[in-house]
């Protein structure tokens, strides 16, 4: 292992650039002859469009064109597809209403794009957009998913007969019924998994261009992988061959799942660019992000657990309503179903599991994957349910978990839900986390808080997620003239530090300094395939691919070195950047081989460039334990996190500093969801929390110090690197740990239920209500 290789907390190669303002995001790119797009968006959650008059707007200075759905339809531009065609319990596929880039005849949520105005300047486009006269005939709307399932609810999508687009179930209902019939104890909870607005720091942005000479599009846009987007645009939307669209993703300022998907603005701007023969650019304003970026979560769940007299889990039954918004975004139906229900076993031995999910359309912004995508929802259900079970049975909340955990000797363990856990020691992680926070000494600290008039609580969550090994990936590595290497890879960093991590892997292979290891991503002209970044897959899929391609490059270089040293390749060792004839001091550097291959090109030699890939063999199961201690001020309802401990098993850790950064960011987002982030639609479907004045994002001073321990001695057994993934874990563990601690604090005051986001007023009100009730 090299000095900067696997396991070292080296500083990020990206930081100098990003911290000094030298990042190059989509909006930083200026192209000749560019013009600007501004979207006319619906102010209504549901309305029929009776007429659109563009005449006045079109005659404004600088205006180049105004397009509506009619233009797209005439040109045969297709709708945005739903790519997760789940099959429901009745054998029926999910109902997929049309998702046009510009609203056809009807708008379905506030912010729905109705027209695109293109002008020489953004100001001119915006001025003209205000003059586009859209005649709306407002219709009844429904934003609440429970209300949307009522028999007389307004129909969100006129092509469907109801708002239930998928009725899904998984597991064995008969076994579960039997488990409940013989149970000594039954625990039951109802939960809200609140909707969140993703709020990436960099808004969505794009530059669409079209070259009439080549009949070819170029799209610069933020994404989490160019090919998922490119394939949809070519195959489903524009019906063009793959070589007629180049997609380029430069630096991306945060995606969190939200930037995976195809969006209406990309389609409309590409169309406009082709019509006008000029590059059309658009950068979303924050107000547009709130009403057009896919949102996350938004579930209502009822969960029950059957237990025997000793607190062993016999079975669970979970019923969820999932709000998918007005249209089905690319993966929307998969998130609350396959991605979530298959994780309902948590880290526990549960003989019988049954889950049902009703996916509901409402007149709200579409909902899709958000950091964790289904696994946080599952973990939140399980870990809140296990706490309730401990209370019902009368066991310590740590003890009931240990009693029911899948034990190391049970591994590999098949949960019965298409998930086989390969490695880990769940009791050990819980015990370590509880030791660090001094779980056993809590009573004294609670008494101390009480003497100061404060309510203290402690809570934990042992989470597991499924990630990493999805699809396949390919890496191409070239040996450059200066002796450095360039990695071409189809994953897509959104700020996580991929370049640093890959450079560490390749440093171990080539012995090169990190700065000589370059990375190319996000351009379909140079990157030939790739599954992108999501589901904590990049390090595993991209990393193994890169290592394999590196081995191939070294093998090729060994041949050249053999010729240069006049020795048989088999006799040549490669170490720390040197090829050496074994047992001698005769050696040459990798850079000399590189120079030779480039200089000698054409004379029987050629520059070395090798490709290899990795196809996922199995999912990985990062897991860990978050323990959280909080104090509540009953006078105000304010909550303060006093202590926060995380013990994570991510398998092999390439860079502990990057991994810690992922945990910190994930905890911040989990804390935000648990305590602050509240997405509120009113009855007419207006988004009330449509700016940072009303939508509370976590700030630095909301964050506790996260005391993180990475357990690195249990590598994943189903992949060559032993990595399990780290990107989503923090956002999965934090909400249940915080909410379990909060409920623990409030129970002595008589509170029995508290939901996210637990804002000060919610907490104060719960305390008021319980004191009134008693």
């Amino acid at each position, binding site marked *: 292992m090299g000095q900067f290789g696997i396991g070292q907390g080296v500083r990020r190669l990206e930081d100098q650039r990003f911290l000094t303002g030298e990042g190059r995001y989509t909006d930083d790119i200026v192209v000749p002859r560019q013009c600007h797009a501004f979207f006319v968006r619906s102010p209504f959650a549901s309305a029929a469009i009776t007429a659109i008059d563009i005449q006045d707007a079109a005659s404004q200075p600088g205006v180049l064109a105004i397009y509506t759905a009619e233009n797209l339809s005439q040109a045969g531009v297709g709708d945005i597809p739903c790519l997760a065609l789940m099959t429901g319990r009745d054998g029926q596929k999910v109902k997929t209403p049309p998702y046009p880039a510009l609203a056809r005849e009807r708008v379905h949520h506030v912010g729905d794009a109705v027209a695109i105005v293109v002008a020489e300047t953004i*100001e001119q486009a*915006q001025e003209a957009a*205000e003059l586009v006269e859209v005649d709306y005939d407002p219709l009844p709307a429904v934003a609440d998913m429970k209300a949307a399932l009522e028999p007389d609810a307004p129909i969100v999508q006129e092509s469907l007969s109801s708002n239930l687009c998928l009725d899904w179930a998984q597991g064995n209902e008969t076994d579960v019924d039997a488990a409940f019939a013989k149970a000594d104890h039954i625990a039951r909870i109802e939960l809200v998994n609140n909707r969140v607005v993703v709020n990436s720091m960099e808004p969505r942005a794009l530059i669409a261009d079209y070259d009439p000479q080549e009949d070819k599009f170029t799209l610069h846009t933020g994404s989490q992988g160019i090919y998922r987007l490119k394939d949809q645009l070519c195959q489903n939307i524009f019906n063009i061959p793959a070589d007629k669209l180049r997609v380029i993703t430069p630096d991306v300022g945060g995606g969190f799942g939200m930037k995976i998907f195809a969006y209406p603005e990309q389609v409309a701007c590409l169309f406009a660019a082709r019509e006008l023969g000029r590059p059309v650019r658009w950068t979303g304003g924050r107000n547009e992000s709130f009403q057009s970026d896919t949102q996350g979560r938004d579930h209502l769940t009822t969960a029950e657990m059957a237990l025997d007299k000793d607190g062993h889990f016999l079975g669970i039954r979970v019923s969820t309503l999932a709000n998918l918004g007005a249209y089905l975004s690319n993966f929307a139906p998969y998130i609350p179903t396959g991605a979530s229900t298959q994780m309902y076993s948590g880290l526990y031995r549960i003989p019988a599991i049954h889950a049902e999910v009703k996916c509901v359309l409402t007149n709200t912004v579409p909902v899709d994957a958000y950091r964790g995508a289904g696994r946080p929802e599952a973990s939140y259900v399980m870990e809140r349910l296990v706490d309730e079970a401990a209370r019902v049975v009368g066991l310590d909340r740590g003890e009931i978990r240990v009693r029911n955990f899948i034990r190391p000797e049970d591994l590999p363990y098949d949960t019965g839900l298409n998930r086989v856990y390969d490695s880990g020691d769940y009791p050990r992680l819980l015990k370590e986390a509880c030791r660090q926070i001094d779980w056993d000494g809590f009573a004294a600290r609670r008494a101390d808080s009480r003497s100061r008039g404060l309510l203290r609580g402690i809570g934990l969550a042992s989470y597991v997620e499924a990630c990493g090994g999805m699809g396949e990936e390919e890496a191409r590595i070239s040996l450059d003239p200066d002796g450095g290497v360039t990695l071409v890879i189809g994953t897509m960093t959104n700020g996580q530090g991929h370049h640093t991590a890959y450079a560490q892997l390749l440093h171990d292979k080539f012995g090169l300094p990190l700065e000589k290891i370059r990375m190319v991503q996000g351009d379909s002209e140079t990157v030939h395939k790739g599954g992108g970044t999501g589901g904590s897959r990049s390090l595993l899929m991209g990393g193994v691919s890169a290592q394999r391609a590196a081995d191939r490059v070294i093998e090729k270089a060994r041949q050249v070195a053999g010729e240069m040293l006049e020795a048989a390749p088999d006799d040549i060792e490669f170490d720390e950047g040197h090829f050496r004839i074994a047992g001698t001091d005769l050696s040459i550097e990798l850079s000399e081989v590189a120079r030779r291959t480039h200089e000698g090109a054409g004379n029987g030699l050629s520059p070395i460039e090798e490709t290899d890939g990795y196809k996922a063999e199995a999912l990985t199961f990062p897991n860990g334990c978050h323990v959280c201690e909080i104090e509540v001020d009953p006078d*105000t309802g304010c909550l303060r996190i006093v202590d926060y401990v995380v013990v994570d098993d991510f398998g092999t850790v390439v860079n502990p500093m990057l991994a810690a950064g992922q945990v910190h960011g994930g905890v911040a987002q989990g804390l935000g969801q648990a305590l602050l982030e509240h997405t509120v639609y009113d009855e007419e479907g207006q988004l009330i929390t449509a700016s940072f004045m*009303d939508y509370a994002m976590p700030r630095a001073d909301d964050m506790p110090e996260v005391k993180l321990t990475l357990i690195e001695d249990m590598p994943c057994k189903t992949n060559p690197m032993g990595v399990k993934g780290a990107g989503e874990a923090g956002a999965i563990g934090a909400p249940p740990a915080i909410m379990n601690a909060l409920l623990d604090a409030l129970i002595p005051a008589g509170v029995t239920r508290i939901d996210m986001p637990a804002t000060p*007023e919610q907490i104060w009100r719960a305390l008021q209500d319980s004191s009134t009730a008693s």
Partner: protein
Amino acid sequence: MYNFDYHRPNSVDDAVRARGGSEDATFLAGGMTLLPTMKQRLASPSDIVDLSAIQDMTGVCEDDGRLAIGAMTTHASVASDPLVNQKIPALAKLAGGIGDPQVRNRGTLGGSIANADPSADYPAAVLGLGATVKTNKREISGDDFFVDMFETALEEGELILSVNFPVPDKAAYAKFPNPASRYAMVGVFVAQVGGETRVAVTGAAPSAFRVSEMEAALSNSFSADALRGINIPADGMNSDLHGSAEYRAHLVNVMARRAVESLS
């Protein structure tokens, strides 16, 4: 943002004249409310009269036992001013808790009170200290200045030049910030000044207001316990998704007690 004509006068007279030139003209102080409103196209003034070049509108000086603070003095300047910290530390603390560093470096005292945002911090101090607002036309008692939500006693085109704060025997400000915006959801300024006890509340209602029952109780006994049981009626309180009227009314008592406690 819509187009407008921009003026940057050097004197108060020129500013008032420029402002009088059009009925849709507006003064620009720090712009912390005006500029975002314009960017969102919710305001479209024909003329902007930028006050930042008028030198005698900034700074702090002692005037007959009072602190006169120029209307264009930024929150950051008030927060760090040695004289303010020495004479009215509660005012320095209040200014230092407004918004974030960017806001504090741009936002001004005059801009804040002229806007009379129901959740701004300064109104609590103006009312709580019994300050006097000095304009280009007259002096307005702090008690008469705040009329209603976003409404003050200022006449059309009247310009605040400074605010004169009496130096209190003691004063404290306790604020419960809105979790999203960090504006005051409830802020209570408590002071003993010029022989009277004042309790002024911002954030809770459409306009800053005084609580006479609390003032009487504290005059009797300046202690947090004296405030227990003095409940503010929820009627007339602001109500939004961050805080219902009932919660705000409750917080008035809590914050008043915390302000008093911080002085003991």
